[in-house]
């Protein structure tokens, strides 16, 4: 994985001192909250429902064991003993003191981590495929490209006060595990004439106006990547709407002027950008790429796994994924135990994962956009020992991709923007569908819950989505069906009138019952919904 050199370290260290000075000036009254707010946000520090919240960047979701251990340390020393892994592959802490924030950043900097641009109207943490480097289906590791973009976007002087936040994802396989087309810019690495380049999709997003990004450029060679990205951003910075916060994302610009006109403007700017010499030499991407070279795999390992423990066998079948290297496997650690809080992990659990990362996964761990953890380089021979330790720590839920593996935003329990609670609804659904056999019978079912229209819980992209709203001061939940954040991306449709907290659980059960009754051989819930359409589901719910 990537390691900082002296320059990267200097920049992050300088940022800690800059923020320390900004926080000092705020505490001393030299700045108003209005002036301080954008500054703290650009360092991931929110004022949330109960306290300050700090969001720490995990670039493209990749960490070492040491970095993971630091996250546990921060949870223990500065927070209330836990953290929350987010849909942008980051972690956030809910109980941070402003007077501690600079010290936390200083501790993070000792392990090459930071909170830079984890909020604010700037380019956010670059996300990627959690299986990058280990997946059998990728054409290249997307993370060197993501790292190049991370550096380019860090304190980009022109793009620090964009109309709105800006999210970029990079993937390198036909299967989309990062909701790439629901990003402001989604990049898919593709091969042409033996060379890897970037296919650009621009103008996707969720929020109150969900959009699937149209393709804007079929191939950008690596030596022009930064010029092209800079052109995309400049057109947005100049012409993105600033009159209405809710229409300020790039998806609205692309939608209003049309993909063709946006493409034309970007091409014009791109032609200009290419004359400025702003692209790093190809040697820079090559330098970064060396950090992502394959780890030192052992060869000649057996692919055999002893499945005689039935609970272990279930976990293997659900949570372990094929690796490109014989004898190895990709392990998913579910942070969705029935009764738990989706994405939350205690300091003890985080530290255990750090230990297991070092012991079993060649010192690398990933965070997924579905709020789970991945150990990408596990020897099959170690799977049983690993599983036993996970299971003992409450990290062995065999539910990856099943109905209880929900994405849920923090909702009104933590978030000052929320209109309704999301976590208690997730817990009630998990209770209703707790039977593991029932979950497996329902098969792949992506259920995603947001506590408000901002859609941090990706409800538009859920096979089943839930949107919490405020109806005259009472929490109410709308049901959506048919969304997908994968390569078959689609936006879910609202079924009709909303429900109370118990009603929404009943409605979901009616929907899944209909699926079980109507499914054809091999159909997932989403496939059956797409074949039948909304009508029978609506009748089952409201009929």
């Amino acid at each position, binding site marked *: 994985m990537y390691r900082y*050199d002296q*320059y*990267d370290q*200097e*920049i992050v260290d*300088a940022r800690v*001192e*800059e923020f320390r*000075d*900004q926080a000092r*000036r705020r505490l001393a009254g*030299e700045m108003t909250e209005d*002036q301080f707010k*954008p*500054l703290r946000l650009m360092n991931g520090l929110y004022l949330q429902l109960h306290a300050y919240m700090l969001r720490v960047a995990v670039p493209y979701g990749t960490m070492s064991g040491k970095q993971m251990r630091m996250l546990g340390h921060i949870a223990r020393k500065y927070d209330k003993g836990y953290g929350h892994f987010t849909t942008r592959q980051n972690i956030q802490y809910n109980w941070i003191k402003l007077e501690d924030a600079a010290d936390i950043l200083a501790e993070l900097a000792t392990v090459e981590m930071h909170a830079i641009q984890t909020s604010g*109207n700037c380019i956010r943490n670059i996300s990627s495929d959690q299986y990058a480097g280990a997946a059998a289906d990728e054409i290249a590791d997307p993370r060197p490209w993501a790292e190049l973009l991370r*550096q*380019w976007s*860090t*304190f*980009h*002087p*022109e*793009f*620090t*006060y*964009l*109309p709105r936040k800006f999210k970029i994802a990079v993937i390198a396989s036909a299967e989309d595990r990062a909701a790439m087309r629901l990003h402001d810019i989604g990049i898919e690495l593709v091969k042409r004439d033996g060379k890897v380049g970037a296919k650009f999709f621009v103008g996707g997003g969720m929020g109150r106006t969900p959009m699937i990004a149209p393709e804007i450029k079929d191939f950008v060679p690596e030596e022009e990547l930064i010029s092209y990205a800079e052109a995309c951003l*400049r057109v947005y*910075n*100049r012409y993105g709407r*600033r009159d209405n916060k809710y229409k300020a994302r790039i998806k609205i610009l692309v939608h209003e002027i049309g993909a063709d006109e946006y493409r034309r403007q970007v091409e014009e700017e791109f032609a*200009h950008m290419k004359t*400025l*010499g*702003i692209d*790093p*030499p190809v*040697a*820079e991407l090559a*330098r970064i790429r060396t950090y992502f070279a394959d780890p030192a795999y052992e060869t000649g390992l057996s692919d055999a796994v002893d499945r005689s423990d039935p609970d272990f066998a279930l976990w293997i079948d659900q949570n372990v994924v094929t690796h490109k290297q014989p004898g190895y496997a990709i392990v998913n650690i579910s942070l969705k135990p029935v009764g738990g809080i989706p994405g939350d992990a205690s300091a003890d659990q985080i530290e255990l994962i750090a230990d297991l990362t070092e012991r079993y996964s060649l010192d690398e761990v990933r965070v997924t956009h579905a709020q789970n953890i991945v150990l990408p380089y596990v020897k099959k021979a170690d799977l049983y020992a690993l599983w036993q330790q996970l299971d003992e720590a409450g990290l062995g839920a065999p539910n990856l991709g099943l109905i209880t593996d929900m994405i849920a935003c923090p909702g009104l329990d933590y978030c000052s923007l929320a209109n309704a609670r999301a976590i208690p609804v997730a817990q009630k659904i998990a209770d209703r569908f707790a039977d593991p056999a029932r979950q497996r019978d329902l098969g792949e079912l992506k259920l995603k819950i947001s506590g408000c229209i901002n859609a941090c819980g990706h409800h538009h992209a859920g096979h089943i989505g839930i949107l919490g709203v405020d109806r005259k001061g009472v929490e109410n939940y709308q049901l959506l069906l048919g969304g997908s954040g994968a390569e078959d991306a689609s936006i879910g449709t609202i079924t009709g009138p909303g429900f109370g907290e118990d009603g929404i659980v009943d409605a979901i059960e009616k929907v899944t019952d209909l699926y079980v009754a109507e499914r054809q051989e091999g159909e997932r819930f989403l496939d059956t919904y797409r074949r039948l359409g909304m009508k029978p589901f609506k009748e089952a719910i409201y009929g």
Partner: protein
Amino acid sequence: MAEFLSFRTGDAAQEPAVTVEAFTGQTNATAVRIEPGEDARDLLPHLDRLSLVEVNFPAFGDGRGYSAARILREAGYAGELRAVGDVLVDQLTAMRRCGFDAFKPNHPLDDAVVKASLERYDDVYQKTIDGRAPVWAKRHPETVNG
């Protein structure tokens, strides 16, 4: 406390800046003010007679002026480029990198904080028109200088 900051040698331009519309409609003005919604590229045919471009920031969160500044510098404008309005001390570094060399903020800036801000980062990741060598150029001197 500084009410006006200039990083140019010599005196600041004194002529009052006129609107883009007024500027493009007359032939003798040498100073112009750009508002956020206006296209800096409208000025490109007239760069040789400009000695001052003021870029107005009515609100610090409106970042269009950063693009305007770079566009002018990228086109070779060498006169004074002045950020005016809601310009905050924590924005100076980025503004300098985009080509601003003078600042007239609504509220005076603390000189010590200005100095600390501008000197904070030894290194930058991007190449802009400010002439600073980005980190990638330092990492690969052979390809950049060769």
